[in-house]
């Protein structure tokens, strides 16, 4: 039997993905389906005076053209934001309506004005050009820092474009600490706007069955049940049992496929209007750029107070967060509970205060994107710490060491609401320093200098809070949903196992990791286990995948369901072996009478459960158990990444000379998959720090609306990472796992920016550190050196 517990089992799903046999939403075609094309706003901000659809309706192949008015007439609601943030005056955030098709105004380029539905996609696209929209242009603003000036006013419901003014932490304690500080370090930071760019664009097919009054929505969702809940309860007013959401193979999400979007809502609604004709839409890449929810976009001022030994006394953070033109499904939670709560980092900073003003601008909505709030927090903390070390002439590793929460101090209550459960921060630091040969960096720097290059090294000691639970806590903080997870573990009569999970895989490899988990628990070959996900018609209600929660929360639910199977199996085994239930042990696939060699395999027990000819009294037939798991706390993955860069001052090109990562994800099931997650996360973090930026111009036009201008990292932009791992199991979940999906994207940007600022000798450079920005600074440095 393979040791499936911890091993580099090849991904079960890759057989179909690598041979082109995946079933992505756009691969699906329903009989008689029609095609939807959206008429999108080309203006960033305008009043819609009229929409004339007559010519479009006459065009060949066109079946229908709908506008916001048609949806209003049908009582369709607004796309809600599912997390209520209470501001510092005790008021709920401003929640202006967000209709799937606009009713009065357009508020960003790409906003949805009308939908044209035709027999072919080309016909729909042709006809969409015939829809005449009479706009009255308004001034637009894309800049979060300017939004609070109040003009232009984007929503009447949010005066001054302020969605909320929120704070966390003890301001008085922070002010007190600052007044006594030996030194204060300060930074102005910009966390650049990112566009997610999942490989598979969003897509949807809505299909209504007039015979049963049931709807099926095929969609690229990371969380089908959540999407169903939002669609049914808030937008379309449908009973949940009449709606099935199928999210088959999904090609990457990074958060952007969590939300309930206009397009899938319209397809579902329109199918009923069209008497059950399926309505299909697949985003073109340019639509993905303009209308997927974007990420980040913060402007921050931060200050750190220290004593003479470099101990942190207090941290003060003031942030403006850009939410875009409308509130996406979880937009309010990202710059608050997923951001402010992480500002203690790995450190014992006794007092932290954070103020966040969230604003509306004429840009695509901003919501969670790989890391969601935690990259923004880590960027503040780790840039700040590095700055302080430089200000105080201390070694950046040493200043961190002096401030780490120590292993014997857990559980550790931070001043920003979280209770860290476990960690070995110094151990990760030491390993990372050894891996990169930190002590000989000076020599490497000299060598680079001899070759006319600037060398820098940068550390990032990140922590994240994953799992986003328990439900009671998140509920108290304003979440509109619970954040548990479900699993059903079904033995089939002949011994194979089907696992139904509420988690959703869109690249993470759950079909393999979860199968390993179950195979290990039952002592059976991993091939005997298949994992089913992504279909509300097949799985129990589940919360889906985001926030690196799948193994920690979803995996724990699976383990609980496995344990129930084993408990029931013991009763059946006791009967067959004529022993007492208490004497039955389960180990390596067999139920055994303790201290004897009398045993039954779990396969035999499963068979007996379905063919219960000789069966214990009072026990139900079947071997099929469901569990719901609500964690006791967040999990706290943490680690240290170190980047080393070499800059060519002549061109400003930054070469990443080395990269080490030492992560603590708790228990690891499949190291290969975990390393893959780390690699991908770092790639996205490097993209953010060096290359990527969603840019709107003054008129609110998206300048980076294609790959000609939006710069994704490519293989030759990336180094070979060296990944190490330490394992401090999560003490409060049965798997011991903490989560690994976002770590790289969280850790990488500050590591790289700290290395670049180290090489350049200035903090005055913003992300992305493009070649021209670097060149301008390096040129100045060379000129200085020459003097």
């Amino acid at each position: 039997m393979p040791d499936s517990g911890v091993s580099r089992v090849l991904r079960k799903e890759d057989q179909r993905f690598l041979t082109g046999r995946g079933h992505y939403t756009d691969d699906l075609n329903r009989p008689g389906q029609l095609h939807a094309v959206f008429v999108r706003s080309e203006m960033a901000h305008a009043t819609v005076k009229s929409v004339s659809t007559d010519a479009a309706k006459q065009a060949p192949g066109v079946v229908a053209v709908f506008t916001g008015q048609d949806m209003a007439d049908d009582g369709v609601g607004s796309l809600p934001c599912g997390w209520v943030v209470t501001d510092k005056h005790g008021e709920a955030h401003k929640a202006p309506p967000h209709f799937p098709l606009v009713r009065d105004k357009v508020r960003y380029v790409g906003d949805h004005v009308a939908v044209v539905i035709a027999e072919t996609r080309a016909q729909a696209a042709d006809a969409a050009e015939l829809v005449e929209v009479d706009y009255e242009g308004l001034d637009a603003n894309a800049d979060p820092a300017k939004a609070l000036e109040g003009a232009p006013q984007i929503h009447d419901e949010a005066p001054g474009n302020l969605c909320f003014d929120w704070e966390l932490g003890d301001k008085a304690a922070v002010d007190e600490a600052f007044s006594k500080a030996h030194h204060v370090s300060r930074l102005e930071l910009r966390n650049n706007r990112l566009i997610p760019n999942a490989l598979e664009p969003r897509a949807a097919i809505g299909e209504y069955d007039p015979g049963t009054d049931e709807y099926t929505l095929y969609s690229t969702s990371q969380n089908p049940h959540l999407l169903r809940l939002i669609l049914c309860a808030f937008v379309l007013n449908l009973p949940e049992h009449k709606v099935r959401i199928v999210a088959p193979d999904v090609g990457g999400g990074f958060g952007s496929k969590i939300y309930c979007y206009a397009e899938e809502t319209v397809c579902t609604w329109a199918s009923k209007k069209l008497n059950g004709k399926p309505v299909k839409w697949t985003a073109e890449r340019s639509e993905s750029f303009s209308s997927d929810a974007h990420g980040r976009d913060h402007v921050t001022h931060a200050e750190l107070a220290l004593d003479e030994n470099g101990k942190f006394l207090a941290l003060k953070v003031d942030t403006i967060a850009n939410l875009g033109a409308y509130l996406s499904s979880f937009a309010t939670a990202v710059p608050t509970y997923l951001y402010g709560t992480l500002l203690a980092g790995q450190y014992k900073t006794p007092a932290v205060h954070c103020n966040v003003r969230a604003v509306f601008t004429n840009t695509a909505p901003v919501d969670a994107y790989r890391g969601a709030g935690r990259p923004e927090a880590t960027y503040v903390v780790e840039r700040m710490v590095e700055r302080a070390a430089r200000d105080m002439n201390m070694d950046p590793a040493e200043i961190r060491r002096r401030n780490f929460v120590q292993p014997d101090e857990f559980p550790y209550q931070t001043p920003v609401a979280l209770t860290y459960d476990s960690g070995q921060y110094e151990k990760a630091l030491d390993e990372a320093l050894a891996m990169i040969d930190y002590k000989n960096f000076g020599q490497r720097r000299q060598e680079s200098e001899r070759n006319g290059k600037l060398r820098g090294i940068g550390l990032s000691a990140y922590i994240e809070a994953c799992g986003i639970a328990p439900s009671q806590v998140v509920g108290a903080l304003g979440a509109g949903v619970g954040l548990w997870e479900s699993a059903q573990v079904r033995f089939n009569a002949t011994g194979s196992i089907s696992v139904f999970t509420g988690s959703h895989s869109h690249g993470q490899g759950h079909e393999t990791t979860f199968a390993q988990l179950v195979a290990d628990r039952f002592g059976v070959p991993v091939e005997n286990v298949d994992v089913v996900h992504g279909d509300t018609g097949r799985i129990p209600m589940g919360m889906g995948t985001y926030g690196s929660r799948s193994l920690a929360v979803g995996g724990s639910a699976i383990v609980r369901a496995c344990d129930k199977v084993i408990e029931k199996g013991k009763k059946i085994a006791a009967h067959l072996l004529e022993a007492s239930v208490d004497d039955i042990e389960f180990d390596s696939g067999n139920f055994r009478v303790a201290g004897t060699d009398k045993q039954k395999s779990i396969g035999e027990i499963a068979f007996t459960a379905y063919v219960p000819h000789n069966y214990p009294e009072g026990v139900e037939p079947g071997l099929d158990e469901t569990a719901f798991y609500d964690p006791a706390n967040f999990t706290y993955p943490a680690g240290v990444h170190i980047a080393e860069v070499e800059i060519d001052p002549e061109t400003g090109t930054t070469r990443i000379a080395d990269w080490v990562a030492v992560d603590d994800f708790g228990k690891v099931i499949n190291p290969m998959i975990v390393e893959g997650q780390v690699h991908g996360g770092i790639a996205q973090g490097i993209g953010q720090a060096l290359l990527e930026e969603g840019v709107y111009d003054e008129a609110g036009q998206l300048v980076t609306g294609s790959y000609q201008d939006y710069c994704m990292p490519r293989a030759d932009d990336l180094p070979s990472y060296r990944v190490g791992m330490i394992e401090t199991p999560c003490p409060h979940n049965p798997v011991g796992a903490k989560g690994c999906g976002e770590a790289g994207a969280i850790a990488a940007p500050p590591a790289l920016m700290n290395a670049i600022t180290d090489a350049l000798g200035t903090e005055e450079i913003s992300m992305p550190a493009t070649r021209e920005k670097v060149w301008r600074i390096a040129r100045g440095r060379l000129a200085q050196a020459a003097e």
Partner: protein
Amino acid sequence: MYGFEYHKPSSLDEAAKLLADNEEASLIAGGHTLLPTMKQRLAAPSAIVDLGGIADLKGIREEGGNIVVGAITTHDAVAGSDVVQAKIPAMARLAGGIGDPQVRNRGTIGGSIANNDPAADYPAGLVGLGAIVRTNKREIPADDFFVALFETALEEGEIVKEVSFPVPEKAGYAKFHNPASRYAIVGVFVSRGPQGVRVAVTGAGPCVFRVKEMEDALSGNWSADALKGITVPEDELNADLHASAEYRAHLVGVMARRAVQAATA
């Protein structure tokens, strides 16, 4: 994309006739420039005349001491050609540095020069070597071929047949790529050979241009050091999200020096 007719002629004459008969027709070679614009509905030709079926337009040969590259020869074929690698290795490297493998396996030299994108690589190679463009009607020296932004000397209905490159004594190409599109932010091709000393710059301005001062300096002293201190004025250079005119002007100097350093016999 709008609807269009599709033709695949098997000779240049037939292609020319199709162009003459269809006013809004467009030639297509690799399609890597034309198809994206059609998909975005920015171009709407009534008919597409596919050059892919004209055998004469394909391939690389030596002729009278020159290297002749057929118009529908892909970038990948040029990069991998034994003849090009042996005679003008800088040209093989230039072709091998265009875009990515997909682009190099579809895009053609004829399509590239006919399009005359200001950031394309081939214009620097053609001007930097003093090549000759042969069409179905005439021969055009590279210096006269590239006229302005997306504008060439090609007349209505004129088709690029092949490009003839003189073999230089030394040539080098240095490219500073746009990290998003992989086109040239600045690309400089330098050579010394039958056409004298040439320094051609692409990416930096609205159209490929030569830098006389650098050519003079290199004529006296073929070394990177000879170029030190020579600058190009930034006022007519491109400025966009990826690079300011000032940065481009600076990079012209850097890339010119690196091209000389990279130049091989």
